[in-house]
């Protein structure tokens, strides 16, 4: 394979694979790094579907513009608009492409792609593949990636962990340091551009709906190396998950999209079996409070409602659970949800086709992440667009979704763009694939013209970073201190979940800050139970824990400083949205010397849709 130009993609979920396929298609070789075989990436957990305007919805009055408007309104206007314009206008093309790749989308009687209703919209505009859409989309992209692997354009580094970006004397990214988690071999890899597509950071919260690899450590390492974060305080808590000992398992929004209803007993502490509670004694609080959207209000709203009725004592049996009920739906509808219903039954022993499911909110998605930029471009309005003056992203511009470090890109969930303060259901798969496809050509354009080639950089540059990473490991292994990394992590999860999720307030967050400082001190006095040099999972976890602590502090800091409520960020001490001064991006950078986050507020350009009050109750 040629040494120049080369691109590294870190992460093999939807965003990483879409980027890989797109970049390889331009003839640029890609080295693909992943903690796990890419086919097992966390995108497999996405269940409900992928949003795009389609012909049926269009003829009912829907449009790409409307999709954009819903995304901005849902995100409480914290999103930059041109990227959302571009994404929603590209969405139908993305569905077509996935269809051509062979994704088994559900079909109508006539053989067209079927649609389901999803949160934050009154139109059916969500394409789906049973109730395991993320898995099906990931597999399609995995297959196309394998095709390029077969052609020799993609080199797969599975089970390799990203450790640090290599930045040259000008602060430009020229590669990465990575480590094989099996042999523990550590190596520097040269690249003319690096794409971070490393997903979310739910593991910071201990139990979440995310996979065990979603620690946010890769994002944290970039942040520590100088990449800014955008809106790290924006963490989505999904309203319906099955709480478990090891994680909270997602119960898809599609259950409500297909007609599922959320309720609690009207009588506090009612401990009758749900099937024994008559209709009139059930409280369908979402339908009552949000007559138009009903059970399909955006996730932050459903989450707060479920949380608060349980706090008031209306939870199932007086506890912290509500019912998600699909028992009344016809069998053929239940069949479309088979994948998630089976999971519920396997884990709880109850068959949700006949017994209402017990659910509670759980941390699910990071809207915030690595801070990125893009190049705006004026677009010619298409039918449905409500303005003559519309702005999208400039196709192929090297700047698109590049972080503040030149040559270092962020795609997918780790990118802070698109979703603002709340992500609408079924927009994640779209944004991940859109980033990969649309901004993939930005990456290949950037490397094609590059003059300062990674291949020509001195070996000493890479050796410096290798030494840095080796020193970190030596320190972790040799310190033989007092504290158990898993216990610190459990406490981190408890603290962050209690202070920084559904309802936040300054007092509790300051307590968390204190605890966090204590944990950071304990982290310097860690005892590893495995100090060996082969497949050391204990070391891998402990190293990530240090980065989680740093990232947690950024989340906490921005949560404290955003003294307003917006979307998923709800402050009981500041319950209203306060546009002046908080209609701004929280840009957080890392002060290496003092090991502290530093926050700047950045204006959000507002070229199209004006701010309006976010109210789903009417």
């Amino acid at each position, binding site marked *: 394979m040629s040494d120049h130009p080369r691109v590294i993609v870190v992460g093999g979920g939807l965003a990483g694979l879409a980027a890989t396929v797109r970049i390889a298609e331009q003839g640029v070789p890609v080295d693909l790094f992943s903690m796990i075989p890419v086919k097992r990436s966390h995108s497999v957990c996405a269940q409900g579907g992928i949003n795009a305007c389609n012909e049926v919805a269009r003829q009912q009055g829907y449009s790409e513009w409307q999709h954009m408007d819903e995304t901005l309104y849902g995100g409480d206007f914290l999103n930059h608009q041109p990227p959302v314009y571009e994404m929603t206008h590209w969405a139908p093309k993305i569905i077509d492409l996935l269809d*051509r790749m062979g994704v088994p989308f559900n079909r109508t009687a006539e053989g067209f792609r079927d649609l389901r209703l999803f949160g934050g919209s009154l139109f059916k505009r969500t394409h789906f593949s049973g109730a395991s859409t993320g898995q099906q989309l990931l597999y399609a992209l995995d297959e196309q990636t394998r095709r390029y692997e077969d052609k020799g354009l993609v080199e797969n580094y599975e089970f390799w962990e990203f450790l640090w970006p290599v930045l040259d004397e000008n602060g430009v990214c020229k590669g990465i340091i990575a480590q094989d988690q099996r042999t523990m071999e550590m190596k520097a890899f040269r690249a003319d551009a690096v794409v971070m597509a490393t997903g979310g950071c739910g593991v910071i919260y201990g139990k979440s709906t995310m996979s065990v690899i979603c620690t946010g450590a890769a994002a944290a390492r970039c942040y520590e190396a100088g990449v800014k974060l955008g809106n790290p305080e924006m963490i989505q808590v999904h309203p319906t998950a099955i709480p478990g000992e*090891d994680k909270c398992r997602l119960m898809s929004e599609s259950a409500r999209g297909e007609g599922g209803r959320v309720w609690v007993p009207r009588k506090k502490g009612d401990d009758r079996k749900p099937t024994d509670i008559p209709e009139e004694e059930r409280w369908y609080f979402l339908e009552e409070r949000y007559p138009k959207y009903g059970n399909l209000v955006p996730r932050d709203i459903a989450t707060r409602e479920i949380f608060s009725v349980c706090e008031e004592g209306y939870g199932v049996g007086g506890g912290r659970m509500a019912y998600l009920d699909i028992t009344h739906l016809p069998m053929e509808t239940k069949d479309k949800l088979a994948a998630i219903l089976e999971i519920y039954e396997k884990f709880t022993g109850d068959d949700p086709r006949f017994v209402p499911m017990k659910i509670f909110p759980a941390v699910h998605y990071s809207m915030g992440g690595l801070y990125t930029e893009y190049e705006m471009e004026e677009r010619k309005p298409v039918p449905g667009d409500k303005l003559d003056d519309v702005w999208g992203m400039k196709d192929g511009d090297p700047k698109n979704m590049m972080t503040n470090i030149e040559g270092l890109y962020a795609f997918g969930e780790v990118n802070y763009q698109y979703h603002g303060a709340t992500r609408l259901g079924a927009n994640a798969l779209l944004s991940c694939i859109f980033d990969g496809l649309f901004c993939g050509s930005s990456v290949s354009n950037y490397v094609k013209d590059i003059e300062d080639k990674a291949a020509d950089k001195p070996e000493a540059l890479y050796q410096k970073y290798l030494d840095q990473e080796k020193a970190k490991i030596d320190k972790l292994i040799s310190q033989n201190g007092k504290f158990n990394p898993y216990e610190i992590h459990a406490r981190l999860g408890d603290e962050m979940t209690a202070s920084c999720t559904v309802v936040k307030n300054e007092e509790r967050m300051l307590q968390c800050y204190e605890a966090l400082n204590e944990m950071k001190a304990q982290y310097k006095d860690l005892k590893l139970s495995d100090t060996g040099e082969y497949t050391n999972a204990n070391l891998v976890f402990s190293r990530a824990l240090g980065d989680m602590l740093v990232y947690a502090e950024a989340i906490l800091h921005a949560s404290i400083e955003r003294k307003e409520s917006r979307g998923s960020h709800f402050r009981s001490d500041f319950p209203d949205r306060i546009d002046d001064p908080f209609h701004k991006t929280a840009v957080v950078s890392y002060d290496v010397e003092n090991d502290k986050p530093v926050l700047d507020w950045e204006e959000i350009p507002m070229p199209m849709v004006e701010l309006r009050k976010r109210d789903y109750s009417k």
Partner: protein
Amino acid sequence: MSTKTFKVKVKRQDEAASASYWQTFDVDYTPNMNVISTLQKIAAKPVTADGKDVAPVVWDCGCLEEVCGACTMVINGRACQACSTLVDELLEENPVIQIEPMSKFPVVRDLWVDRSRMFNNLKRIKGWVPTDGTYDLGAGPQETQEEQDLRYAYSRCMTCGCCLEACPQFTKDNDFMGAQSFAQTDYFNSHATGKLLADERLDVIMGPGGISDCGNSQNCVQVCPKELPLLTAIASVGRQATIYSIKRFFTGKK
């Protein structure tokens, strides 16, 4: 308050080439545990039942929702996912839970095995739809809901390896492809564009380690956690192979 504990016997192996050995752990019981949370407790405090500090057990896992396929291991003698295997059910069978790595794949360490053979087989059978690239070329081929039903069933294969662990034909040292590859072959061959590579796939399927080595024990279909119609796949691919070989004979194609 006295804590209830249960015993877990884990088959361990320090390195790929080293010999395996067993260790037993006492694990604190809490309601609704699965095997993953059991292993997490062992990892947090790796002390054996007889009080010896040992290296924490290493295993492979991902989503913990039984969709990624990573955490497949042999638990109480059955290949299954550790995330969806519940401790209460296991304890009903036997007071000691026994966990081993899959036996048909090389061990990396402890319960972690190397299943790259499965992914390589996907490459061998050209497991993809030959698209003309990511350009905007309109929708894919229309299909009926019945066709989607079958393809969706195949597409839920999470490359976990249960079918291969249970297969008497599939061993560490032969090159049999097994049910996973046959199902994926049928998956791609039943798509209107995927079909364009059907002959090339069948060339592989009829070659060494292919469909003719299937001993028809039908173990695979019984252990598949996603209930893939593996026998349908084997029969269908077998039929395609027969037709293709006749075609090959008459057209003189090698």
